[in-house]
């Protein structure tokens, strides 16, 4: 069940894992997510599908080791099995009829942005990509993005690779250079998506964002993932995770994402100590 067929570190904290899951691979589309549990008593972790192979019957996830849950997941190696994996959940990213799109990815969000770029490229759309990272060591999927993009801007906060600066600056420049996008698709930290939306709103470019709030079941049952979109309450798990970025209440989403910050810090510490013990 759910055997890990490959695992590779993309940078010191970001890992790509491919899992045998034929039923999910058969239905998965870019933009959808899966929920997994590493072990018998683990949290349910929602992770966006980074790739899938219908013939091999596998799905790929890319995760950043940030909390106790991802630390535990990262103790599993090739040949081990996940305890649970369910999906594909959520609504696939809408790609029909898009002729020219700018994909904006930030950090590990690039892992989710890439399959969308790849699909659009495959459908014959003109894809521009703007991907941003804190520094050179954290860059992922550079070559992959290059292959599917006719224009690409790689930005780092410190200028250690690509151009120095934020993705918003690069995006704004592309728009000012006269690129008329049917849509901008932005996937990354909430703050990044918020500021991308501020830029695109100024130019009246439709913008889709992929939201990744706290959730439990992923099927509409808990309501923990609720967001305010255009004044209405929406559940990211069943109504999204993609939403019209110009309608999302980002400040509320940012506040809600910090709901368990204290608990998480504590859990991270506890599991670090556990791992230390195992090493000893």
């Amino acid at each position, binding site marked *: 069940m759910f055997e890990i067929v490959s695992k590779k570190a993309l940078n010191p904290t970001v890992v790509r894992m491919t899992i045998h899951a034929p039923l999910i691979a058969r239905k998965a589309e870019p933009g959808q997510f899966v929920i997994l549990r590493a072990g018998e008593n683990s949290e349910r972790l929602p992770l966006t599908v980074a790739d899938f192979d219908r013939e091999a019957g596998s799905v790929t996830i890319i995760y950043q080791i940030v909390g106790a849950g991802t630390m535990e997941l990262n103790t599993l190696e090739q040949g081990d099995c996940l305890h649970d994996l369910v999906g594909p*959940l959520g609504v696939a990213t809408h790609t029909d009829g898009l002729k020219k799109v700018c994909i904006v990815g930030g950090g590990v969000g690039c892992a989710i942005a890439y399959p969308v770029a790849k699909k659009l490229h495959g459908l014959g759309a003109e894809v521009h990509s703007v991907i941003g990272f804190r520094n050179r060591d954290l860059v992922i999927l550079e070559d992959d993005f290059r292959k599917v993009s006719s224009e690409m801007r790689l930005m780092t906060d410190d200028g250690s690779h690509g151009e120095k600066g934020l993705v918003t600056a690069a995006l704004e420049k592309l728009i000012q250079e006269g690129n008329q996008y049917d849509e901008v698709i932005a996937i990354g930290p909430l703050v990044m998506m918020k500021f991308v939306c501020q830029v695109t709103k100024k130019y009246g470019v439709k913008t889709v964002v992929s939201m990744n709030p706290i959730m*439990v*079941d992923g099927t509409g*049952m*808990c*309501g*923990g993932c609720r967001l305010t979109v255009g004044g209405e309450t929406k559940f990211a798990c069943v109504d999204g995770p993609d939403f019209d970025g110009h309608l999302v209440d980002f400040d509320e989403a940012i506040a809600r994402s910090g709901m368990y910050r204290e608990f998480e810090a504590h859990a991270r510490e506890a599991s670090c100590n556990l791992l230390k013990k195992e090493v000893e």
Partner: protein
Amino acid sequence: MPNMDPKKTPMPSQEPCIRNGNFKEVALGYTAEMAVNEAKRCLNCKNKPCVSACPVCVDIPAFIQQVALENFEGAYEVLSRSTSLPAVCGRVCPQESQCEGKCVRGIKGESVGIGRLERFVADWHREHATAEVTKPESNGHKVAVIGAGPSGLTCAGDLAKLGYDVTVYEALHVAGGVLSYGIPEFRLPKSIVAQEIDGLRKLGVNIECNIVIGKTLTVDDLFDMGYEALFIGSGAGLPRFMNIPGESLKGVYSANEYLTRINLMKAYLPNSTTPIKKSEKVAVVGGGNVAMDAARCAKRMGAKEVYIVYRRGMQELPARLEEVEHAQEEGIIFKTLCNPIEVLGDENGNVSGVRCVEMELGEPDASGRRRPIVKENSEFVLDVDTMIMSIGTSPNPLIRNTTPGLETNRHGCIVVQNDDGLTSREGVYAGGDAVTGAATVILAMGAGKNAAKAIDNYIQRK
């Protein structure tokens, strides 16, 4: 000679001030002696009014007579002819409005403790039975059941007993539906749910968790896979909110989320990896059984003050009387005739209070209950840091959105032709909360049972 004591044999229970600090079961169960004593209160009426009020038609006097004769395994055999989940029913059925509500002994005293006896027999069987359940001979027909909650499990159990090859698809990582994620450990221990489900597996029922019908597979995929009929028992899992300002503040939960974190994800265990807010003062909005469960969980999670905020009066609370009494004993404070109008937050976006208005009751509305009306100038702020919304749930849209030709009503409930549960699609049956909207475990079980009979007829006629 029957036992003519007008009162039920009392149920041994944990003391309220002890139990509101732990998640162990509240009611401890009868001893054999107590059970026999209680069973002797049954008059074994010829016309069996109790049976007519049971959604799954348990032959109540017959099983109670076996208890009186101290033949507990015989009593279990009678029960298991009608119910696949007796240990569950004995604990969570609203007996006072069903079997016990019709009991002749209830006219001049207390009814026979039918629920308590059912629980005793199921528990006795679980602890003493040695005979292995045998898998019935296969009849070669395949049926799929969607949802491993009370209706789905009942339907699957009944079909398996008839020799069908039954597979149950469950979206969560554990079977049981509301029995696992919703009803707390202290009312229904999860080890009991697991053992009842294990009993179904021994009957040959195959349970596949982590499969969301409507996502991983569709109804049409299931027919392509060779299933001849389907039963949809996907429940009513979508939580409702009040749509008042502040509902997105940190510290506002749906009862579903709160209970799921505690029960399914085990946030109550000391080393749990599941985050949950450490609350001091909690307002639970709503007056049903789920609201009582959420309030009693909050107390056990360490909250000092827990309020039930309900817009009608004590008389109108939809929860079972027993649940209300248990909650009161455990120190839950009832703020009835009170309705929230805004959730207040602090500078960090955490809940800091709930602005409420007082209500009074007017003329009866369409539901027959007196309509609550806002009292003028009655606004006040309830000082809480957590708010749990328990004002009902609706059916999940995942199946209706992916199943062409499946008729649903404006509430999103699946429309069925009659008690058999046949939907607008041939070979597709449905029952439980997915059809009725949020109701009880036993009504869902009754629907699963009727559908199993109808599916058997359908396949045999084909």
